Every structure is written in structure tokens, then in C-alpha cells.
């Protein structure tokens, strides 16, 4: 296998723009994929040699991320969001229609190489779905008319840049603004305050604010930043030789979450400013924004904001005239892997590797990016930190509850009239949120996405707070027409697809759970299968390596606890039916022999 000289030049140019740096491997592969529609074996070899890494690492990374492939995708690479919220808006029917219009099967590239179609995990447009992506760019509000138009554009091979701009329109849909979302922010105000008041005073303000990480885990931000500043045991925090990193986790992959998309679209200065304040406090020179690949449409606008901040001397050298306060931010794009939202997997990905969660301890605050002390925080956390720096800890702590100070930004979607972004003080009841978003006939709510909790209508007086219903922000409303088992099934397919594969219980267990649930949903389940389902769900929860596996069984356990009757209704009266499909096992033989008569089938007794 060899490459055309012109192709080789393109690849080498991409590599050189990333200084042949192995930590840039994922960025290089993204660009190669965009240029050649795949990462072929000869290209893998060129990259491996240029970066001085084993070709297995290039292959490993290529195969790990959903948006990279070793087989060519179409010149129009269409990926339909497969979130439950898209399903509820009719995405599956639209997908079928689109595939029919394009003459293509889902998961395949058309023979002429023009177009390919895949399903993909939630793309974060749940408030304006059904959604999809074409060549990485988000498509919103799909309906039959739009699908017709897209099919025509693809078949006429009209460049994506000439497609109607309204197809790519992404709205903020801010429905309720409070502490963080209302009021103007003057870029630089938080940094000035931090430089004026000094490290100890700022740590105190942050501590008083009670701010806890907004990604879901809720670790106290002041503590995390202080640990990072102090570094591993035995180091002098003020030693300028110690490298530290500030990483903003914008890999918002939890289905039903899209608040970070809005924050990065309309509040990017606050987010970058929060990172810069963090850098000032912990002594960091380099920050990274890990932007999920699905938000490619935000990449250029964010680069412009960074450029503007450099112009304003809010990034770069001697920031705001402070000698030796040098800090800058790079944007690192993901490529379709939910697991990279886990902070140590995100760091691995930043280093150009597969997103495999690390063993802890040690934690990223002491051994993070490149083994150096690293703060990883959610987009909303950095934004809140910037506001707290300006307005003070007491301002923030005045809202919320004793254990959950301040406000939380929610992404509301599903069966409601006003989906979008809502900011509430912690302690707000679910009933209040349902009333505000004008939920129609609510039956249950998925709080915190698939990894969170499904609550029933009896629990709407519960509160959104770390001490009751903790959430990273996903809030999906379901009405009485929805099928709880189908919702759970969608979530289990999601986890089986997104498991990184490192540990046995999550790698094998999520696939077993998916298959068990499929069996029940397809009408082959028996009482024995419910026992098995529960047993496996608990095993995956208790023995998995990271948060993904530990929460992957939540959809099953939380719905089984609340609606055992809905599961039982789907079961057969017999005590057991084998998972082995006798007739299905003959399918290949039928295909090979071209037979489909009665004798070519076996009936299962059960």
C-alpha cells in the first residue's frame, strides 16, 4: 500500500501544523479524517513514524473514537442523534425515511462513496431536535421537509457550505436566568479582582461561596484548586518550575444535557475568565478547553473569543500588566466518546490516547495532564467561579440550600412546551420546574441523564440538590404515552456503545444488560430474566472501574424499583426461555442455501 504524493503532502502538512507532537494525535487524526474521510493504514504508518509512536497507538485511537474510521465514510457524513429525546421527536422514522431517500442502509457508506449514514449518541440539541450532523456540523429541527431537502442536496452533491443556513441554526433557548445567566459581565473584571485581592483572599471567597463542581460529582471547587496549588506531597507550591494545568471539561455527553453548549455560545468570556482566575491562583501557564466533537460549530467562534482576549491582554504574557502572569488556552476537540467526560479519561484523551479512565489514587489534582497537578472542572463551574470572583462568595451562597449553595443550570427537554435552559437555586422542587417548562401530563422525569435517576410522579416534591437529587443538568420529561422499558432500553444501548472496554464488568456487563433488556422488550422475557437482570445490574454497579460503569445500570435499577409491574407485564408466563434462538441460528444456512421454506425453519418450544 502506498500513498499519492499529494496526499502525503496533505498529511505531512497536518502533522507539521501540530509540530509532530504525540499529545496532538487526536487533533491530527480529526483533520486527517476530515480531509480523507478515513484514516487509512498507510496514513497511520506515516503519522506513527512522524510522531515516533507505535502504529498500534494510532490504530487504537482511530478505532476508539466514533467520528474516526479506518473505512471511508461518505463525502456527506451524516450522523443522526439517537438520544431518547430525538426518538420522542420522531428521529427514528425520519432516519428511515432519509435512508430510503438516499438509498442507503444505516451504518453504511453508499457504494458511490457520496454519502454515509450512522446513528450517534446524543448531540446536545435536545431542545431543538430531532438533530443530526453533516460532516461534523450540527443540524437542528429536522422534519420531513428538511429531510427531503437534505436528500436533494446530497444527491445533487451541493457543498455543505451552500446548504441553507437555517438548517444549522442553533438557538440558546434561555428560559430562566438567575445569578449566573443574568446581568452583564465585563471581560477582565474577575481577573482584576483576583490580582487585587490576592490568592488567600480569593480562595476564601471561593470557599465561602460553597461552590461545588457542576459536572455532577460535586467536589468543593475551593478545595480542588487549593490541592492543585499545593501539589503532590513534598513540593514547594511557589516553585515556578512546577507545571500545572487548567482543564475545562466541555465534553458534555450525558444525553439530555446541553447547557454547556449555551454557555460556550453566549458566555464564553466568563468561562475563559474563570479558567484564567484559576490559573492565577494555582500558578498555571497553560489551559485546555476540551470541546466535544459534536460542538464543532462552536470551535471557530470560541477561537475568536480567545483571540479577542489576547488582544485585551486577558490571555498571553504579563496578563493585565502583572509581571510573570502568563497563561493561554488551547481548544482540544473530542471525536465522539462519552467516556471522555470522565476527568481522567479526558486527560488521557488530551494526551492523544484512547479515553481510558485511570486508576485513582493518585488524583488529577496532583497527577493529571502529563502527570502534573491539574484542575479539571466543568464549564459551568468555571463560569460560576468568574462571577464569584467579581461578586464575592456571600453573593453566591445567599441562594440555594445549606449543602448546595448557589444556583444550577438545567437543560430541560422532552415532553414540555418550553424546552431549553433554566437556572434555579438549589432546593427548587421538581414540581416547580415541571410547571415552569409547562410539562404536559408528566409521568416521570429522568434527572441527571441516563446515569442519574428516573423519578415517578409521586416524587415531584423532591428537590434538585446534592443532598436529594444531584444532577449535572440533564432534565428529561416523559408523559404518560411513553414506554418506560423503551426509555431504559435506549439508555442501555447508549452505555453498551460508550463503555470504554477497559474493565470486565462494564465491557461485558453493559452488553449483557442491553441484550437482557432487548429480550424482555421483544417479548421473550420470563420471571427468571428479571432475577438475572437485577443480579447483573448490581454487579456492574459495584465492581466497575469508573463512574460510567458504576452508573450504567441506574436506568434499570431505578425503573425496576419504581415500576416492577411494567416489567412483569412484559414477561411470559413460563418460568424460563433460553437466550439461544434456535431458528435464528439457522439464518446463515438459509442465506447460503437460498432457502426459506418451512423445513428451513425450526420452531422454539417454550
Amino acid at each position, binding site marked *: *500500500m502506498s500513498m499519492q504524493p499529494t496526499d502525503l503532502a496533505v498529511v505531512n502538512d497536518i502533522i507539521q501544523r501540530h509540530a509532530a507532537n504525540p499529545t496532538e494525535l487526536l487533533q491530527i487524526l480529526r483533520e486527517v479524517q476530515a480531509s480523507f474521510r478515513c484514516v487509512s*493504514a498507510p496514513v497511520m*504508518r506515516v503519522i506513527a513514524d512522524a510522531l515516533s509512536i*507505535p*502504529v*498500534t*497507538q494510532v*490504530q*487504537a485511537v*482511530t*478505532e*476508539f*473514537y466514533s467520528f474516526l474510521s479506518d473505512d471511508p465514510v461518505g463525502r456527506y457524513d451524516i450522523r443522526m442523534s439517537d438520544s431518547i429525546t430525538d426518538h420522542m421527536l420522531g428521529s427514528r422514522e425520519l432516519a428511515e425515511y432519509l435512508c430510503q431517500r438516499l438509498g442507503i442502509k444505516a451504518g453504511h457508506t453508499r457504494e458511490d462513496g457520496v454519502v454515509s449514514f450512522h446513528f450517534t449518541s446524543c448531540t446536545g440539541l435536545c431542545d431543538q431536535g430531532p438533530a443530526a450532523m453533516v460532516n461534523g456540523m450540527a443540524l437542528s429541527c429536522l422534519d420531513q421537509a428538511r429531510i427531503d431537502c437534505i436528500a436533494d442536496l446530497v444527491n445533487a452533491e451541493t457543498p455543505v457550505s451552500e446548504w441553507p443556513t437555517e438548517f444549522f441554526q442553533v438557538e440558546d433557548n434561555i428560559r430562566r436566568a438567575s445569578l449566573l445567566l443574568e446581568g452583564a459581565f465585563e471581560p477582565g473584571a474577575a481577573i482584576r479582582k483576583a490580582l487585587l485581592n490576592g490568592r488567600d483572599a480569593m480562595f476564601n471567597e471561593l470557599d465561602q461561596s460553597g461552590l461545588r463542581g457542576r459536572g455532577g460529582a460535586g467536589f468543593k471547587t475551593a478545595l480542588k484548586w487549593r490541592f492543585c496549588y499545593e501539589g503532590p506531597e513534598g513540593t514547594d507550591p511557589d516553585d515556578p518550575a512546577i507545571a500545572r494545568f487548567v482543564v475545562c471539561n466541555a465534553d458534555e455527553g450525558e444525553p439530555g444535557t446541553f447547557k454547556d453548549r449555551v454557555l460556550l455560545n453566549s458566555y464564553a468570556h466568563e468561562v475563559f475568565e474563570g479558567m484564567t482566575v484559576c490559573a492565577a491562583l494555582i500558578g498555571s501557564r497553560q489551559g485546555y478547553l476540551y470541546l466535544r466533537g459534536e460542538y464543532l460549530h462552536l470551535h471557530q467562534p470560541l477561537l475568536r473569543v480567545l483571540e479577542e482576549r489576547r488582544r485585551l491582554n486577558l490571555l498571553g504574557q504579563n496578563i493585565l500588566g502583572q509581571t510573570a502572569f502568563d497563561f493561554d488556552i488551547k481548544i482540544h476537540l473530542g471525536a465522539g*466518546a462519552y467516556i471522555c467526560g470522565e476527568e481522567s479519561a479526558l486527560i488521557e484523551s488530551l494526551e492523544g490516547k*484512547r479515553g481510558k479512565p485511570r*486508576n485513582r*489514587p493518585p488524583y488529577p489534582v496532583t497527577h493529571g495532564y502529563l502527570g502534573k497537578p491539574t484542575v479539571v472542572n466543568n464549564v459551568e463551574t468555571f463560569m460560576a467561579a468568574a462571577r464569584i470572583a467579581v461578586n464575592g462568595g456571600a453573593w453566591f451562597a445567599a441562594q440555594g440550600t445549606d449543602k448546595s449553595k448557589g444556583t444550577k443550570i438545567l437543560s430541560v427537554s422532552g415532553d414540555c412546551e418550553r424546552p431549553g435552559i433554566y437556572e434555579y437555586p438549589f432546593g427548587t422542587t421538581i414540581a416547580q420546574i415541571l410547571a415552569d417548562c409547562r410539562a404536559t401530563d408528566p409521568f416521570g422525569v429522568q434527572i441527571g441523564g441516563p446515569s442519574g435517576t428516573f423519578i415517578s410522579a409521586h416524587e415531584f416534591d423532591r428537590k434538585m440538590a446534592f443532598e436529594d437529587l444531584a444532577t449535572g443538568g440533564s432534565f428529561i420529561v416523559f408523559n404518560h404515552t411513553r414506554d418506560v422499558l423503551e426509555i431504559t432500553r435506549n439508555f442501555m444501548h447508549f452505555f*453498551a*456503545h*460508550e*463503555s*470504554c*472496554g*477497559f*474493565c*470486565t*464488568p462494564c*465491557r*461485558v*456487563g*453493559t*452488553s*449483557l444488560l442491553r*441484550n437482557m433488556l432487548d429480550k424482555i422488550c421483544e417479548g421473550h422475557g420470563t420471571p427468571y430474566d428479571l432475577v438475572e437482570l437485577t*443480579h*447483573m445490574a448490581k*454487579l456492574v454497579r*459495584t*465492581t*466497575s*472501574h469508573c463512574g460510567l460503569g458504576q452508573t450504567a445500570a441506574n436506568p434499570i435499577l431505578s425503573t425496576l424499583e419504581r415500576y416492577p409491574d411494567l416489567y412483569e407485564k412484559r414477561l411470559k408466563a413460563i418460568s424460563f426461555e433460553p*437466550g*439461544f434462538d434456535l431458528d435464528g441460528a439457522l439464518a446463515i444456512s438459509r442465506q447460503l442455501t437460498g432457502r426459506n421454506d418451512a423445513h428451513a425453519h425450526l420452531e422454539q418450544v417454550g
Partner: protein
Amino acid sequence: MKPNTITIDGQEVPFIPGQTIIEAATAASVYIPHLCHNPEFKPHGSCKLCTVQVNGRSCSACTMPAAEGQQILNNTKELNDTRRSLTQMLFVEGNHFCPGCEKTGNCQLQAVGYYVGMLDTHFPHFFPKRNVDASHPDVLLDLDRCILCELCVRASRDMDGKSIFGIAGRGMQSHLVVNSDSGKLADTHLSLTDKAVHVCPVGAIIVKRTAYLSPIGERVYDQEDIAEVALEHDQALTGGEHG
């Protein structure tokens, strides 16, 4: 309690600061089942067979540092049931046919299966399509049996300095890959003396012309169960018993 002591199933076990739970246990001749752990390599923590309860929380004994005050449960019915399920999951994920396998009787997966009382594979088999690579003159690579412990990956990278193996893919599609343009072992610098050839706990990496040399009754796990074999092996590597 004496300083630097943990308890495992009620037994006091001393530890040296920096040791993991499994290292302290091994030194005290307490066996904790494991497959991906090998004291010659950095802790990995992927197979999860060494899952123990530390003060009520599930942890991997091979990666968790031993610390003062840890009350650890190891040899309990509940944990051994979990280990049996995990072993069965490894069996159905790949294609393991013990009776005909070259590694039978000498295989850690099979031996752990016996140890945890596994009588069947319990779960529906996935029957994945995986390849055999017989291209190398001395070494056979049968991916049907790979359990993704990454011992060969670690050995080749960290000891042999060759990085011949890697793991690619994601989730259930994860698979062992070989560092050559053809993807075949024959096109690598793998040699029979490489550590990577000799660390596979299962029958995925087999030295050619060594199969079935020991008759039934004289194979490794015919004579001793895996608890005894593993303790002897691991203690020899870490300087024997203490305490």
C-alpha cells in the same frame, strides 16, 4: 492494633507503606483471585477479579494502596459469587473451549474458574469472530482466548522495549493488535526470549511445539490449585513471605 496493619477477613495483615492491598495480602499468604495482576508489572486493575470490600466499599485490591484502619473482606460468599460471575463473563465474551486448548491445565482463567466453583458459563455466549495469527515461526496468537489483561502489552513495552502489542477499539470491540504494517506477528521483532511471549495468563499467546507436553495429572493446576500456585509465584517475585 499494631501500626501499618490492615485486617483481611478478620486476620491482621501487616503492610509496608506504598504496598497495595494485594501485595500485603500475598506477603501474608492470603490469596486474592486475580488475572490481570502480575507483581512484575505496574498495577492495572482491569479484570476486577480481585474486587474486595474495603470498609464497606468495593475496590480492586491490586490498585488500592493499603492504609491503616482498612477492614477488608475477601473470602466471602458474596465476593466469590461476584468473582464467579466475572469469570463467566470473560468466558462468554471470547471463545474458550478448554478441552481442546493447548493451555488446558496450565491456564489461569480455567484455574480461577475451578477456584470460584464455576460449573458452567451461565450467560449467553457472544461467539465473537476473532482471528488466529499463526504467521510467526515460534509463537501462535489466538485472539479467541484473549481476556484483554494487557500483560503482553505491558511486558513488550516496559520490559522488552518493543511495544509489539496494543489494545485498539472500544467496549466489546476492544481487541489486541500487533505493531506491524501487516498486523501480523511475523512482521514484528518478537522473539521467543521476549517477556511478552511468556506472560499470557490464558492461551492467547502460545509457544509453538510446546502443546500437550505434560500429560493430564502432571499439568500445573492438576497438582495445586491456583491459590497455591499464585502465592508461590507472586511471593517468589516480591521477596517471599513476611509478617
